[in-house]
Each structure stands twice: as C-alpha cells, then as structure tokens.
C-alpha cells in the first residue's frame, strides 16, 4: 500500500511537471514568440494560398496565404492574455463576494448565495453566448461575458472557507480584541482562501481558453483577421478536405494549452489543497 501511494505521488508529480513545462513554454511563446517569427500574422499572400507544411511555412499557409505558424504564435498571446484577464476578474469578484457573504452572514449572505444559485441555473456557455452576442461580437465582450459567468465557483469556495474559519477561537479572539476589520480579513480570513483559489484559477485558465476559442469559433469573439485560435479554426473549416493543417494546428494548440493547465491544476491541488475533491468542469 505504501509503495503504491508513493508511486502514485511520483506519477502525479511527474504529470504536474509536464503541465508546468507546457505552461512555461506557452508563456515563453506568448511573450517572446511574436518578436521572433519572420512573418506578419495578418499579411495576405494570395499567390501562396493553402500551401502544405514546408521549410518556409512549417505549418503551411491558410486560405489567404498567411503563415499558420505565425498566426498560431500570435494566437498564444491572445488566448493566454484573455485567460489571465478573465480569470483575474473572476477571482476578484468571487473572492470579494465570498468574503463579504461569509463574514457578514444574515441577509447579505442569503442575497449573494441566491444570486449564485440563479447564476448556476443557466448553463454557463449559453449565458456567455447570449451576453457576448447581445453586447456585440468582439473579444472584449467575450471577456465580459465569461467574467460574468464564472465568478460563482470562487464565491462559494471562499464563503465556505470564511464560514469555517470564522468559528475558530483565534478569529473570535482577534475580533474581541478590536482588530480592525481590514486586518482581520488580511491576517485571518484570506490566508485560508488562497490555496483553493490558486488551484481553481489554474484549472479555470484552461476552461477560459476553451470557452474563448469556442465563442470565437462561432463568430462571437475575435473577429478576422485577428490571429485567434478559434477564429483560425473557423476560417479553415471550408478547407478541411484539401488543407487539413489549417484546422488542426489551432486544435492541437488549444488542446495542449488546456492539458497543460489541467495537469498543473490537478498537481497543485494535490500539493496545496489535498482535501478538495475533483470538481465537475464548468465554463
């Protein structure tokens, strides 16, 4: 039994390492990549349309003769940028709501948690779809829609953690000694929240990449000629028969990114927050 769990731990750590490496490479590509690639991501070259992979174009060219590798590299920056922005907004809103609801209790808590229930009563992606659609198709509106949809998980986790900490003696004691509320939050309530939030946020980065690509694929997110993975996939769908690389290059990129964040998130959970159960995927 001991041997078994040690093996399991080793394997999960190895997978975590793989996840960290994938995420590290993606981050590097997003930051440095665009300065290295030789082509312009939006420059059309109609005489070189639909060229299969070659030395000059390692992943071929697309329907407008643009270099797929270059667009993929720029797309990394777009996807990661949006994922980080959306996740940050979710974390901030969710943490504030969770802290306030858990600490205040009473009707404030009741109000916020009913709000969370209502939010959860919509299938997330459908809500995001409608919000993004009605605000108008653009990457900015996709960000707003995804931020509105996804903060509830954080609010619930943070609230739960605050509720369980609030009851502890040392928090009571601190309150009785007249610790200012700001300090009480910062010193006693927030620390218990940080680890689960880091874990959820890491997994969330992957789901946001997936959702952004999905919405852009439908046409509600990034607009052509922006080099975004979902948009690239949509652009290539007419050509799956003759030019399979246009669709598959961004597909692989999305999958690797999501895989990286999933592996890293699962590993971080084992390390930081072992009690937490695997949660059902949400948008």
């Amino acid at each position: 039994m001991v041997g078994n769990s040690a093996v399991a731990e080793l394997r999960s750590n190895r997978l975590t390492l793989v996840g960290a490496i994938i995420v590290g490479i993606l981050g590097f590509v997003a930051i440095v990549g665009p300065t290295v690639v030789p082509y312009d991501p939006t420059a059309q070259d109609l005489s070189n349309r639909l060229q299969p992979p070659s030395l000059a174009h390692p992943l071929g060219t697309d329907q407008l003769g643009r270099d797929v590798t270059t667009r993929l590299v720029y797309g990394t920056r777009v996807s990661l940028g949006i994922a980080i922005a959306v996740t940050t907004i979710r974390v901030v809103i969710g943490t504030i709501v969770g802290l306030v609801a858990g600490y205040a209790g009473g009707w404030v808590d009741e109000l916020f948690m009913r709000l969370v229930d209502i939010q959860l009563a919509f299938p997330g992606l459908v809500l995001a779809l409608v919000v993004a659609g009605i605000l108008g198709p653009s990457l900015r509106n996709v960000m707003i829609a995804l931020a509105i949809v996804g903060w509830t998980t954080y609010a619930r986790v943070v609230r739960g953690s605050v509720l369980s900490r609030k009851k502890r003696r040392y928090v009571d004691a601190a309150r009785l000694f007249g610790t200012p509320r700001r300090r009480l939050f910062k010193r006693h309530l927030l620390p218990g929240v940080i680890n689960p939030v880091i874990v959820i946020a890491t997994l969330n980065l992957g789901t946001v990449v997936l959702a952004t690509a999905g919405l852009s694929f439908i046409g509600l997110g990034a607009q052509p000629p922006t080099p975004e993975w979902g948009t690239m996939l949509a652009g290539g769908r007419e050509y799956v028969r003759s030019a399979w690389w246009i669709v598959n290059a961004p597909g692989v990129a999305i999958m690797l990114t999501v895989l990286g964040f999933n592996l890293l998130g699962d590993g971080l959970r084992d390390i930081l927050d072992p009690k937490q159960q695997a949660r059902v995927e949400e948008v």
Partner: protein
Amino acid sequence: MISAEYIAYRIGTSSLVLVCVSVLTFGMMYLTPGDPARAILYHQTGQQPSAEAVTAFREEHGFNEPFPVQYWNWITDIFRGDFGTSFRTNRPVATMIVDAIPATLELAIAAMVVALVVAIPTGVASAVYRGTWIDQASQLFALAGVSMPNFWLGYLLIIVFALHLGLFPVSGTGGLSYLVLPAIALGTGMAAIVTRLVRTSMLDVLDAEYVDTARSKGLTERIVIYKHALRNALIPVITVVGLQFGFVLSGAVVIEIVFQRPGLGMMLVDAIFARDFPVVQGVVLVISVLFIVTNLLVDLSYRVLDPRVELGGENA
C-alpha cells in the same frame, strides 16, 4: 423515501429560480448598446431607420410600455404557448422551437449514451486494475478528452471517418448515420469526466466494509465487483451525469454548427447574429427550463436511489 415536504420545497425553490431566470432572459435585450428597436430595424434593412419607422416599430411591439408591463405580457403569452414572432422569419417562435428541439435532444441523448457506454467500463477497469497500464491508459484518455475542444474533435472525426473513410455523412440530419459523429464529438468530453468519476467512486466502494464482507463470504471477485461494488459506485455517477445535461446542451450549440444540424443551438446562434430577440429569448428560456427541471429530477431521484439517505431515517 423522500418526504412530500422536501419535494414541495425543491419545487418551490426551482420555481423561484425559474421566475428570476425568465426576468433575466427577457431583460437581456436591454443590454444591447443603444436602442433595441433601432438596432433590430438596422439589422433588418441594412440602413439607418427613419425616426418614424422606429416609433412605429416601438409602438407595434409594445416597447413603449414600462418594463414590468412588457415582461408580464411576454410571460403570460408564453404560458398560453405564444412565444412571439420571429423578427426575421415572421414565423411563430414556438413553432420554430418545436421544430428544432428533436434534433437537439436526439444529439444530447446520443452524446450521453456514448459517454456512459465508454466511461463506465473504462472507469471500472481503471479502478479494478489500479496502477496497471490499463489504469494509466484510461487516465490518459480522460485527460485528453477533458482538454480537447469538442469542435476540433468534430472536424477530426469528419476528416477521418467522413472524408477519408467515407463511413458517415459529413453533415446534416437524417438517419442514425448522421448522428454517430456528432454524438461522439459531443460525448467524448463528458465520457472523460465520467470516467474519472467512475474510477474514484469505484475505488471508494472497493475499500468499503461491505465489499470486504462480501469477499470474506467467499463470493468470487467478479460478483463482488459487478453486484456489490458497481451498483453502489454508480449512484454518485448518476447525479453528475444528470447535472452534466446543461454542459451537453451548451456543447450541442457548437457541435450543431460544426455538423450543420438544424437544432436549438444553430437557431440560437443565428438569432443572436440577426438580433432576433424573440427567438433568442424563447430558446434561452427553453434551454434554462430543461436545465432546471433536469437538475430538480436528478436531485429528487438521487435521494430515492441513495440507500444511505434511507438508512438515516430508519435508525439503522
């Protein structure tokens, strides 16, 4: 058994959520930047509408009434089965929805079947042969399945099975052959999630005392696994599968576009682009109702199925 009181309570809260959802659904139109009437007319004609046209449109569609009155008219009409008329096609929205629902439900159910047929054996094998290559392979599958965008998987399937092997049609609706690839594309993500869940649940159960008891009675491992362990392991799985219904519906939107299946999802996306608000509102409301009702049924049936809830009441 579950008490009538609990059922009444759950139905009550679900209805309340439904009311809020309907207000939100109706109110979404007012999120549109600027004047919705102007936006709709602009979309229909492709040019800036005249002030008279906007006034007439507002008058005709009751936009001048206060919001609560508009909402009340909308929701009471819906209870009479009138979802309004599409701005774009001039057809009754209710008819459009009724026409589109079968294609979507067919896809959603087929995807769930695919997910369960793949996930249950894989998850059980993974737990029973924990730590072996079988376990590792199935966990790898689960990881890949969760990380793969379903619309890309859709195109992969089209490229391989429709274009190269010619086994299935590329797109459209029709017989069962049209359903296979979309159902696999949509079901794989869920299969991955359920595989993980079956594995965890099965491992928990295999460690439980009653399984030890069954083993010590001299029952064969086969009977222990299938009769005692699997049945109990599936209870939490049912809940998650039910709750995944919303996830499947969302996914169906994208998959319908990949495979050009005329269902609710395609209708919703078309309507969003055309600013056809009655259709958007109707479809979102229908999807939310389906989602809320499923969650309610799942919650109630879980309480009926889970023997532990029964035991609590019987003072065992």
